[in-house]
């Protein structure tokens, strides 16, 4: 249908006139600009750039022109159609952007809504603190030793120079397994792990032993029949009180922060000789001189009792197969609950043993 039509009167092909093409182009561009939405733009595209748009129809008439006029008319229509197409593309992009902008605005939510759909749990602070202590010692090259909680009386007492008449061996402090002839106890400290380590591996030994221990104390705000200890043992050549002090000073700083120093004072433990009680400078009053009588944390003493320690009694070395002529060692022990109590301000022992989830949850993943 767009074949040449020589009988056609060129004068009557008004649609291809420059004025008319310009008018259609202008109308098309104006319509594109006026499209306020992608839907409107779609209609404009159909009306001004579709197969039945005025310019498309006009383009069909080109064949009716004399050959010499076709090229110019073709170029004129093509340019107009191209301009409209460009305008549509630009407008389409504008409208797309606008639409997305509006859509994103519409999708605005309240980001303060809580989303506690999958509540987290928590490890117990006693576990985390034991681990943290173990990590500290592992960082110094020590290893973590463990042993049974139901333990041979010989390892819990005899090997540690706690003779059969020692008060700690009576029913007043120690849980005995029935029948007593089984000579089995619930370990009263983690020291049997130290004995086991000495009996099963050659020196040098640097081990830390965290674990659960038992004494026949009724549960109250400051006592529990089941509690946790961490003990350390170093057996090497030339080990004495000064290495013990160095280790505990470093340990105290790691646990309680810079400036928390330790103090040794004479004490008594059957498995160490000399023995010392290790005190920490009070966190609250920092041992201010003169003593602050009102400090409730240390009762004005400036120091808080942390644990016991000393040079391993040579009798213990002998019972555990270590030659005291060659090796010496130190040992120390601290209560984990006690450490947690004054490090983290826990007021009541019961909070740590009752399994109330509010306690553990409060700590997150760190103590």
């Amino acid at each position, binding site marked *: 249908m767009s074949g040449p039509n020589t009988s056609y009167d060129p004068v009557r092909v008004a649609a291809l006139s420059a004025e008319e093409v310009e008018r259609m182009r202008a109308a098309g561009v104006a319509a594109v600009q006026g499209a306020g939405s992608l839907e409107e733009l779609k209609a404009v595209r159909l009306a001004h750039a579709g197969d039945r748009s005025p310019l498309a129809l006009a383009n069909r008439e080109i064949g009716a022109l004399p050959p010499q006029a076709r090229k110019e008319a073709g170029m004129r229509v093509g340019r107009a159609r191209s301009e409209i197409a460009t305008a549509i593309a630009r407008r389409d992009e504008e409208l797309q952007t606008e639409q997305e902008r509006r859509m994103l605005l519409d999708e605005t939510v309240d980001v303060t809504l*809580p*989303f*506690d759909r999958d*509540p*987290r*749990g928590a490890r*117990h602070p006693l576990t985390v603190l034991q681990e943290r202590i*173990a990590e500290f010692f592992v960082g110094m*090259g*020590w*290893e*973590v030793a*463990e042993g*049974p*909680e*139901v*333990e*041979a009386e*010989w390892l819990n007492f005899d090997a540690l*120079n706690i003779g059969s*008449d020692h008060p700690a061996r009576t*029913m007043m402090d120690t*849980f*005995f*397994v*029935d029948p007593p002839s*089984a*000579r*089995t106890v*619930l370990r009263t400290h983690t020291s049997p792990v130290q004995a086991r380590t000495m009996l099963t591996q050659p020196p*040098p030994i*640097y081990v830390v032993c965290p674990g659960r221990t038992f004494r026949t104390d009724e549960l109250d705000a400051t006592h529990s*029949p*089941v509690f946790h200890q961490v003990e350390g043992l*170093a057996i090497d050549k*030339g*080990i*004495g*009180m*000064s*290495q013990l*002090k*160095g280790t505990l000073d470093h340990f105290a700083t790691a646990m309680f922060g810079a400036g928390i120093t330790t103090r040794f*004072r*004479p*004490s*008594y433990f059957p498995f160490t*000789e*000399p023995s010392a*009680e290790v005190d920490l400078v009070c966190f609250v009053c920092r041992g201010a001189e003169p003593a602050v009588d009102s400090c409730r944390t240390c009762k004005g003493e400036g120091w808080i009792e942390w644990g016991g320690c000393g040079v391993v009694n*040579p*009798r213990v070395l*002998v*019972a555990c*197969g270590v030659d005291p002529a060659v090796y010496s060692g130190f040992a120390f022990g601290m209560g984990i609950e006690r450490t947690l109590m004054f490090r983290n301000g826990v007021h009541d022992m019961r909070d740590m*043993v*009752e*399994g*109330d*989830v509010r306690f553990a949850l409060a700590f997150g993943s760190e103590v």
Partner: protein
Amino acid sequence: MRVPVSWLREYVDLPADLDVGELARRLTMLGLKLEALESPGADVSGPLFVGRVLDFEEEQHSNGKTIRWCQVDVGEPSARGVVCGARNFSTGDLVVVALPGTMLPGGFRIDARKTYGHVSDGMICSARELGLGDDHTGILVLGSEEAKVGDDAVAVLALRDDVIEFEINPDRSDALSLRGVARDAAIAYDVEFDDPAQRFPAATAGQGYPVAVRDVAGCDLFAALEVTGFDPAAPTPRWLARRVQLAGMRPISLAVDVTNYVMLELGNPIHGYDKQRLHGAITVRRAAAGERLTTLDGVERELDPDDLVIADDRGPIGLAGVMGGEATELSAASTDLVIEAAHFDAPSVARCARRHKLPSEASRRFERGVDPTIAPIAALRTAQLLTRYGGGQVAPVATVVGQPGAREAIEMPADLPERVAGFPITATESRAALEAVGCNVAIATDELLVATPPSWRPDLRDPNDLVEEVLRVVGYDKVPSVLPAAPAGRGFTHRQRQRRAIGTALAAAGYVEAVCYPFMATADCDNLGLAPADDRRRATRIANPLSEAEPLLRTTLLPGLLRAQARNIGRGRSDVALYEIGIVVRPRPGEPTRPPALGVGRAPTAEEYAKLDAALPAQPLHMGVVAAGNRSPAGWWGPAREATWADAVQACRLVADVTRTPLEVESAHVPPWHPGRSAVLRLDGVDIGHAGELHPAVCRSYGVPVRTVAAELDLEALSASAADPLLAPVLANFPVGKEDVALVVDDTIPAAAVEAVLREGAGELLESLRLFDVYVGEQVGTGRRSLAYSLRFRAADRTLTEAEIAAARDAAVALAGERLGARPRG
């Protein structure tokens, strides 16, 4: 041990301007730990005078009370009028008068006040009002020789003092006496120590009251000294009663107060017998079976053949070193006394005191060790104090039976203190320190020190004991801080890392760790519905449990977790998920073995060590979880998701996952779980745990909501697995082929079985398989269900063709049809 500082000064020349806090601190650094510091009388201020009652009128008042309107001379120009409610005084008596403005102990201020129709111009004080004890039966009447009118009563009555209370370590029995504390105080201030044991003479040994010691091991020295013509009514001198009182003992009578005074002073407990009530010789022996004794506290006790007793011809008259008997007790009529000062075997006294639950001041000292040589001195000191204040005669000689063994010298390498302490200590310093604590140093060269410990330090036995004494005197605070370099370690063990990973994973999954007591009751086994033959009923029993209700060591973590669960719910929390990682205790099968009897002179052999372990019950590490309520709460995002059996199983799968353990799951019918909603977890065909919904009866027993779920897994089996490094997977990047299949199967066929068959049938092209839907309903018919799986296929070396993927899928479906009767859902 409570130490009045004024008393301490008798034996050690402390500075006049002594800071008591500093004294306490120095003694603490010597090992006598400050427990409390008191300053009795510090809150008392005058005008508090000694006055004489010039005259009084007794008045009966309408409230039934009789008072005395007294005229008292306090050394002022005119007498004061004072109202007094007591009547235990006469005209001319010396009394203590608190004039208006006086502050009495406890912040009690005295003012002139109108009472019973008079203006009382002060108060006549009782002993209690002055802080001098409990006596408030009447006012305090002073002896005419004690004071004169107008004296400051604070000084006359020694109202002000400082008392230091020490916590004494078990090895320092010597410090349970003024003598021992004074020795350390002298060291603390580097001043002279005047040892009361040298100041006071010993009784001369001879033929005194007859004594027979039949158990020399239990009593190596016994001194008996007679006092005759004693006045039992004589009052205790005020200073002596005050010292005894400040030291923490109640003044009772001159005889009792003096024995306590000497015990506090010298450390040797003293016992006094009424000689008139003794029958025949005093005998020290073990009790005979069936013997009985009524002790001073009025309790009749059945004696144990291990009890060391003091007896006369009629039988036991005291538990040696623990408590005397009622029958021979001193009374208000006792004029002739036999004083016992003895040394008893420490362990024997300790056993006796514990057996009879009778800790006393005496037993506390004997069981730690009393100076075995001091008895003859203590006996004479007691007798002399008694006769000085109560009249009578001390017998010229005492019966002294036994001879304590001499102390053996200890040889110590001269450089040992320095080696142990870690800083220079010369042999000269060591010698001086050892002599200061009472050792007799015979040799002190650059190589060797030979020191004989003093009689009052039974704890000193080894060279290291001497080192502690040296270090104590030189100063623990001098120990330098030197960080030792440990050899390179191996870090945490696989087992330790695994335990942490499991805890971390469970916490991340919403479980909160509980650290429960490892005790349980027989009732727990019933509450859990365990069958009579269930292995979990075989529990290790504690001989002396804190609570008779829970005498067993747990064989399962569940009772503790369920109690914690109930506690949380009781405290108002409805959604609780707990976990615990801890040991359970399982007696070994068969007859328990006995551990070998081992000495301490050498290490046990490997065989003996193995026997020690074999005698212990097994203590495997378990993981337990319980959950109730919602695992995921309802919210604006949608409805809640309740904890179900599947959560319990999933907790185990999670543990298996993080430890790379191939866990098999099968349905189980094991208490305490719901028979249709619980699983057994297997590793290599061995049951290692169970999980699921708890039986409703179990929930009711523990007070937790019905449908609480729980799991318990033995972690020992896991710790062995997956220790080796994992071979990393190869990540193929050829396109994935996805196929979904829905199979209708009999609903008794577990999903795990269907999955296993599909995996087998699909062959090695199968990359993954996931069950994404379970449908039960009319479309598939009753007794059947449809399981829908999405399968992903991929090859490592090529893009799979449609035909290959279809063939693999068809093979999977075909095998499921063949093995399980599954047919594709139409």
